C-alpha cells in the first residue's frame, strides 16, 4: 500500500489499565502526533466516553457539524478493557458530532480493536480533518510505526463494502494470513450516502476461523468516518492479552473475574441463556408484554411475531456449541452468528455469506416494518453491515415513511414504489437505494427528523395547509428525539422508559436507561419519585460501563441470586461489587460504588453541556413523540382498549369514562402528556438542573467543570 505519511514511535507500556497517551491524526495536514496526558486527566475523565467527551468539548464548536474538518472521530477503550480474566472487556466507544443529532454521539462496540489499540500504546485515537483522498490508518505496535496509506483498491464490489473490504485489508497487510493480533474498523458505501452509517469492528475469531464483525451502530459514526475520507483503521500488537492491563493488584482482579464468571456460569443458563440464544430471545418476552415494535411502533404485539422468536434462530440458523464471546475470556458469549447463508436478494444474490447476528434490535427493526421473515432478517442484517447502515435507524425511518403512506401523507408516486408495511421487495429495494444514494434512498437515508420535513413540504401545498401544521402531526409518530431514531422498544405502557428515552443525552437509545421491565412488568418503581430516582441512577452506572471499556450484559442481564436479598434487586449490586473490585485491582484506586457514580455524573454533565451548546440541551429537546407516550390514533387504542380503559379508570379516580373511544383517546393523551411533564420536573431537580433542563451553575462547579466555555454557555441560558 502506498504510504502517504509515517512516523516511528515507542509504544507506551500499559500500567494500571492506562497508557496515558492519545494518538492524534489530522487528515488535513497528515500530521501524526502523540499526546501525553497529564496525570489527573484519567482521574477526571475515566476513559472511553469520558475521553471522547472532553476532546469534543474542547476542540469542536457550536458550528461544528458531522462533516466539518474540526469534527473529531474518537475511539477509546477505557482502563478496564482488555482483561481475559474478567468477562466482557472488549468494548470501546466511537464518538463524534453526529450527522443525525448535530451533537455528541457515541456508540459502544465489541471486538479486539480497543484492547489492541491499548496494547499498541494508546488509550484513545482521535482523528480530525478531512483527507483529500481515501486513506487507511495503520497502527503497528510490533513495528512501532503509525502510517497513513492510500486506501487499497481491490475490485469494485469489495471496495464498496465494509466486511468484504476489511477482510481483504486484514489479510493484505499481514502477509496473506488472518491473525488475532490485528483488528480493524471499517465503513462501507452506505455510510457515505446516509446519515446513519455505522463503524464495523472486525476481528479474527479462531474458533470460527473467519473474520467476525461487531457494530458501533448508533448515530452515524460511520458516516463521520467516511466523510473524513477514512476507509479503515488497522491496529496490530502481538503483546500477550493476559494481564494486558498490567493490573496493580492482580490477585484482586483475578478474584473479581472468577466471581463474575461463576455467577454467569451458574445463572445464565437458567435465565436468559444469552450464551445460547444471544439477544434474539428477547423478542418473545417483548411481544408477550406489548413491547415488540410492529408497524412503526403502532403495536407492541403481533400474532406473526413467533416467526421471529429466538427459538427460530436457535433451531434453524445459529451455529451451536460455539463459545461466541466478542473478546477473550467472556463466558457470557452472546455474539451469535450464522454460517452459510445464501443471499436471495440484492446485488450479491446467490452469494454465500456468514452473518454476525442477528441481535434483538435488528430482529425488531424488521418487525417494525411489518415483516416477519427470519431469512429476510439475516439478509437485512448482512447487507446493513456490509453497506454500513444502522439496522435500527433504517428500520425506524422506513417504518415512518410506510406509515406516512398508510395515512395519506405520501403517495406511491412520491416514493416511486409501494413502500407499505410488510412489503419485503420494497424494503429490499430501499435498502440498496439508501446504500448507493439513489432514488428515494437519498431521502430515507437522512433519517426520520429530516424525513418529516420532506414529507411536510410535499403534503402541505397539495392540501393547502401550512407546513408547520403537517409537521405537528408528523411529530406525533415520527419516532425520533434530538434527531436520533428510537431503539426497538414500545414505551406506551412504561412512563419510566419514556423518560429513559427522552432524557438520554445522545437521543433515544436504551444504553443509558432500560427501565421498561422493572417498571412495566416487575412494577418495582411505581411512584414518580421512584421512577425519577431510577432515571438518575441507571444512566450513571451505565455511563461508567461506557467509560471503562466494559460490556454491561454480564451485570444487567444475569441476575446474581444474592440480589434478591437487597433493597433494590434490579440494581444487581452484588455483581456490581465485583466490578468495583475489578476497578480498584486494575488501577490501584480505592473507590466505592458511590465514587464511581460521582465520576459518571461528571461525564453526564459534560455531555449535557455539549448538548446545550449544540442546541439539544433544553427541556424542549427532551420531549418525546406522542406515540412513545401512548396511542396516537384510534386503531392503536382499540387494539389494546382493555389496558387503556383500565389505565384510565385507575388514573381518573375510577370515575365514569367518556362514552366514545375517541374521547377516551383524547383523555388518555392529555393525562400521558401531563405525566411526562411531571416526570421532567422531578428528574431535572434530582440532576441539579433548572426546570428548563439547564444545569445549575452550582452543579457544574461541584463537578469541577466550570471552564470559560461552560461559564459563557450558562450565561447565555440565564443560569
Amino acid at each position, binding site marked *: 500500500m502506498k504510504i502517504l505519511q509515517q512516523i516511528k514511535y515507542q509504544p507506551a507500556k500499559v500500567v494500571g489499565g492506562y497508557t496515558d497517551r492519545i494518538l492524534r491524526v489530522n487528515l488535513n495536514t497528515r500530521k501524526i502526533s502523540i499526546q501525553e496526558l497529564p496525570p489527573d486527566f484519567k482521574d477526571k475523565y475515566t476513559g472511553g466516553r469520558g475521553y471522547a467527551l472532553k476532546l469534543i468539548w474542547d476542540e469542536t464548536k457550536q458550528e461544528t457539524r458531522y462533516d466539518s474538518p474540526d469534527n473529531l472521530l474518537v475511539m477509546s477503550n477505557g482502563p478496564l478493557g482488555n482483561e481475559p480474566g474478567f468477562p466482557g472487556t472488549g468494548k470501546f466507544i466511537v464518538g463524534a458530532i453526529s450527522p443525525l443529532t448535530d451533537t455528541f454521539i457515541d456508540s459502544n462496540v465489541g471486538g479486539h480493536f480497543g484492547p489492541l489499540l491499548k496494547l499498541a500504546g494508546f488509550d484513545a485515537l482521535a482523528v480530525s480533518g478531512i483527507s483529500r483522498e481515501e486513506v487507511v490508518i495503520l497502527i503497528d505496535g510490533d513495528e512501532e510505526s503509525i502510517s497513513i496509506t492510500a486506501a487499497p483498491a481491490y475490485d469494485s464490489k469489495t471496495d464498496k463494502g465494509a466486511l468484504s473490504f476489511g477482510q481483504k485489508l486484514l489479510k493484505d497487510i499481514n502477509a496473506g494470513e488472518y491473525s488475532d493480533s490485528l483488528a480493524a474498523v471499517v465503513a462501507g458505501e452506505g455510510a457515505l450516502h446516509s446519515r446513519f452509517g455505522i463503524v464495523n469492528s472486525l476481528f479474527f475469531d479462531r474458533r470460527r476461523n473467519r473474520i467476525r464483525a461487531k457494530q458501533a451502530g448508533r448515530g452515524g459514526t460511520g458516516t463521520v468516518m467516511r466523510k473524513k475520507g477514512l476507509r479503515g483503521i488497522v491496529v496490530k500488537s502481538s503483546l500477550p492479552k493476559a494481564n494486558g492491563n498490567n493490573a496493580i493488584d492482580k490477585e484482586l482482579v483475578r478474584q473479581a473475574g472468577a466471581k463474575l464468571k461463576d455467577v454467569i456460569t451458574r445463572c445464565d443458563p437458567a435465565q436468559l441463556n444469552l450464551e445460547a440464544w444471544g439477544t434474539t430471545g428477547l423478542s418473545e418476552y417483548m411481544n408477550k408484554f406489548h413491547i415488540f415494535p410492529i408497524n412503526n411502533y403502532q403495536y407492541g404485539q403481533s400474532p406473526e411475531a413467533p416467526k421471529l422468536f429466538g427459538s427460530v434462530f436457535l433451531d434453524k440458523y445459529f451455529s451451536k456449541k460455539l463459545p461466541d464471546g466478542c473478546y477473550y475470556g467472556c463466558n457470557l458469549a452472546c455474539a451469535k452468528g450464522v454460517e452459510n447463508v445464501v443471499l436471495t436478494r440484492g446485488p450479491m444474490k446467490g452469494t454465500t455469506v456468514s452473518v454476525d447476528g442477528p441481535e434483538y434490535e435488528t430482529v425488531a427493526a424488521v418487525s417494525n416494518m411489518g415483516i416477519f421473515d427470519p431469512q429476510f432478517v439475516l439478509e437485512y442484517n448482512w447487507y446493513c453491515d456490509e453497506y454500513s447502515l444502522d439496522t435500527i435507524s433504517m428500520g425506524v425511518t422506513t417504518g415512518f415513511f410506510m406509515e406516512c403512506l398508510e395515512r395519506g401523507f405520501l403517495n406511491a408516486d412520491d416514493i416511486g414504489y409501494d413502500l407499505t408495511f410488510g412489503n419485503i421487495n420494497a424494503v429490499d429495494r430501499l435498502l440498496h437505494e439508501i446504500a448507493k444514494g439513489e432514488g428515494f434512498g437519498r431521502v430515507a437515508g437522512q433519517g426520520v427528523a429530516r424525513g418529516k420535513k420532506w414529507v411536510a413540504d410535499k403534503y402541505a401545498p397539495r392540501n393547502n395547509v401550512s407546513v408547520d401544521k403537517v409537521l405537528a402531526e408528523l411529530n406525533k409518530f415520527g419516532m425520533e428525539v434530538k434527531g436520533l431514531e428510537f431503539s426497538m422498544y414500545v414505551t406506551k405502557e412504561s412512563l419510566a422508559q419514556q423518560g429513559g428515552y427522552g432524557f438520554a443525552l445522545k437521543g433515544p437509545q436504551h444504553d443509558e436507561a432500560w427501565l421498561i421491565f422493572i417498571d412495566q412488568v416487575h412494577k418495582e418503581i411505581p411512584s414518580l419519585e421512584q421512577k425519577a430516582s431510577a432515571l438518575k441512577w441507571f444512566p450513571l452506572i451505565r455511563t461508567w460501563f461506557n467509560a471503562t471499556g466494559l460490556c454491561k450484559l454480564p451485570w444487567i442481564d444475569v441476575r446474581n441470586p444474592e440480589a434478591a436479598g437487597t433493597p433494590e434487586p434490579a440494581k*444487581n449490586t452484588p455483581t456490581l461489587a465485583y466490578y468495583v473490585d475489578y476497578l480498584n485491582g486494575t488501577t490501584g484506586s480505592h473507590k466505592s460504588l458511590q465514587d464511581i457514580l460521582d465520576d459518571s455524573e461528571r461525564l453526564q454533565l459534560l455531555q449535557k453541556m455539549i448538548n446545550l451548546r449544540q442546541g439539544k440541551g433544553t427541556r424542549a429537546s427532551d420531549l418525546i413523540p406522542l406515540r412513545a407516550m401512548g396511542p396516537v390514533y384510534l386503531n392503536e387504542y382499540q387494539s389494546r382498549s382493555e389496558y387503556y380503559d383500565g389505565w384510565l379508570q385507575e388514573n381518573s379516580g375510577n370515575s365514569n369514562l367518556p362514552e366514545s373511544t375517541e374521547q377516551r383517546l383524547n383523555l388518555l393523551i392529555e393525562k400521558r402528556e401531563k405525566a411526562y411533564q411531571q416526570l421532567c420536573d422531578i428528574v431535572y431537580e434530582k440532576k441539579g438542573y433548572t426546570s428548563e433542563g439547564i444545569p445549575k451553575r452550582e452543579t457544574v462547579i461541584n463537578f469541577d467543570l466550570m471552564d470559560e466555555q461552560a461559564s459563557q454557555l450558562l450565561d447565555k441560558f440565564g443560569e
Partner: protein
Amino acid sequence: MVVLIELFGMQREIAKIGKVKMPITEKTLVRDALEYVRNRYPALTLDEASILTTVNHELSPLDRPLKANDTICILPHIGGG
C-alpha cells in the same frame, strides 16, 4: 379447579411445551405451581432467585394463593442491553 402456567423462551424450549394446566385446591400457592413444573420437567431448574412470576400479568410473590383459571407466567429477569 385448574390454573394455566405459561413458559417462555428458553424454558419453553427445554420443557418442549409452552402452556401447562395444573389442578389446584384452595390452599395452592404460586410456589406450588413452580414445584409442579419442576416435578414434571426436571430439566427446568426454576431457581426462585433467578426468576419472577406473574399471576394474571401482575407481579406476584411466591406465597400468593391461586384461584381457579389464574394464569401464571414464569419469566427470567431482564435488565436490557
